[in-house]
């Protein structure tokens, strides 16, 4: 049975949660990415382990943290260390290969490269954003990264104003040639669709579009076109998924609003 009454934020959180498997180590940021991680933990991947770039592992999240520096990530964790330990866990292949990460960005290109730094000229930007944070590191180290995006032309761009976090760079093996291990963004979850990066070409394609949206509408909201030939309609959240998300993951509605 499918729920009819859900918000796009809820849809996005559930789509991301479904990417997470039992045994995954989930690197979560703030906002909706943290909600998605909590949803996976509570719904489909109870044995996944959530960890934060600040150094907390498997925290007892009783209230949603508003930053990865929030004291709410420190309570009841298996270990409270620091930034070095967190990034080393991803750079180290023994643990890093088990990680799935959730990122956000101001711009994304067809190869899954991300911009979280600036719009316009880097030296005199029209809009300055927060910068990489751990984004560049995560995209460099982690084999599977989910990017959360709003589906807008100014965000799905032909050319990034600044490449902060490497995806497939220019595709066709250029990521490995630059010195990076395989990894980076391989799934993009938007308010309209789930896009994936083809492992051969390194290019984005449309995998699932949400009920009420068509591939055409999606392409209209991007500067570049992508293969839509494999696209199917996404399965919306189930009642169970929604109930858990609302009641267990964000009862204060800090993210869901």
């Amino acid at each position, binding site marked *: 049975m499918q729920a009819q009454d859900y918000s796009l934020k809820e849809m996005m959180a559930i789509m991301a949660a479904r990417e997470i498997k039992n045994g995954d180590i989930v690197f979560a940021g703030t906002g909706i990415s943290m909600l998605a991680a909590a949803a996976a933990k509570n719904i489909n991947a109870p044995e996944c382990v959530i960890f934060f770039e600040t150094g907390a592992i498997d925290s007892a999240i009783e209230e949603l943290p508003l*930053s990865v520096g929030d004291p709410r990530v420190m309570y009841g964790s298996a270990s409270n260390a620091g930034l070095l330990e967190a990034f080393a866990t991803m750079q180290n292949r023994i643990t890093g290969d088990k990680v799935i990460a959730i990122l956000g960005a101001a711009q994304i290109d067809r190869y899954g490269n991300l911009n979280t730094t600036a719009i316009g000229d880097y030296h005199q930007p029209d809009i300055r954003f927060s910068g990489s944070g751990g984004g560049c590191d995560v995209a460099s180290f982690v084999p599977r990264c989910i990017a959360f995006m709003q589906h807008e032309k100014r965000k799905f761009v032909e050319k990034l104003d600044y490449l902060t976090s490497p995806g497939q760079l220019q595709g066709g093996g250029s990521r490995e040639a*630059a*010195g990076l291990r395989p990894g980076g963004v391989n799934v993009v979850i938007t308010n309209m669709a789930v896009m994936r990066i083809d492992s051969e070409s390194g290019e984005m394609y449309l995998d699932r579009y949400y009920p009420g949206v068509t591939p055409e509408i999606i392409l209209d909201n991007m500067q570049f076109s992508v293969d839509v030939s494999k696209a199917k309609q996404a399965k919306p959240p189930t009642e169970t998924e929604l109930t858990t998300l609302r009641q267990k993951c964000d009862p*204060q509605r800090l993210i869901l609003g």
Partner: protein
Amino acid sequence: MDKENSKVMTVETAVKRFMNDGSHISIGGFTLNRNPMAAVYEIIRQRFKNLHLYAHSNGTGVDELIGAGCVGKLEIAYAGNGKTAATCIRFRKAVQEGTLKVEDYSNFMMSLRFLAGAMGVPFMPTLSGFGSEIITAWGFSKEMRQADPEIPDDKLVIIDNPFGMKQDASKVLLVPAINPDVTFIHVQKADTMGTCRIDGLTFADVEQAKASKHVVVTCEELVEPDALREFPERNQIPFLHVSAVCHVPYGAYPTAVYHHYDYDAVYLRAYAAAAKDDDKFLTFQKKYLYGVPNHQGLLNLAGQERLKAIKADARTGYAVNMKRG
């Protein structure tokens, strides 16, 4: 230790003694947690200028220093402050208006740079960032770097992996060490010799402290050395690294201190609202910073009710069910 050599002093004295215009400094904490705000506000009140500031993800502390015009150059990974400012507002304004020189790194790179400084080596290696403009776009130009003996001539250096393809790496990125003149951190407990005990995440505080020529510690509780000697495992920063210890309860306010108090969402929202407008921001800093003689003055303005609202719950270490949205 005789009285003249004592490290215990007021934060006003410590800031005056160890800071200069143009000093290279770093501050501990992360976004809205354990920023050494009493020290930051005192630096602002003493109107230091042209500071070279090193940060990883220090939200409030960095933004107030920039907003007050204290910072000339900034090396940073992330300037954001949770829900109240996805990008720090005065930081964004200063960069867009060209009044602040910024060099961008990632969080891991900045943490490794402090680690290299702490370990006394010129660089640390990482496999992060290949293909990113963090490597190719330099906020500080080569000319500017060569003219400044305090910073390395290169932002970053790539070498071929000297050990073949070990760790599946063909190349290695080397990130240069940082050794700040002064680092300010705020901790739960410090003793009179300067040994520090941090509860909860340490972020990069330990590496920042050990990399620095001087460390000024503000603390919630100042104790005698014996009090920290029963569990030396929990003391992350030994006194060898510390120059000053200042007893400042609520010294991280309005940011959080695990097991003591939460961040003050009311203050942070008011700050964010004011920061969007130059005049309002000036008025805001006049009232809360310049208008008070010290950190206690700011706490008095905040008032007992707000301090009570952010008081940490004994079990979880934060303020349960606090209004944050």
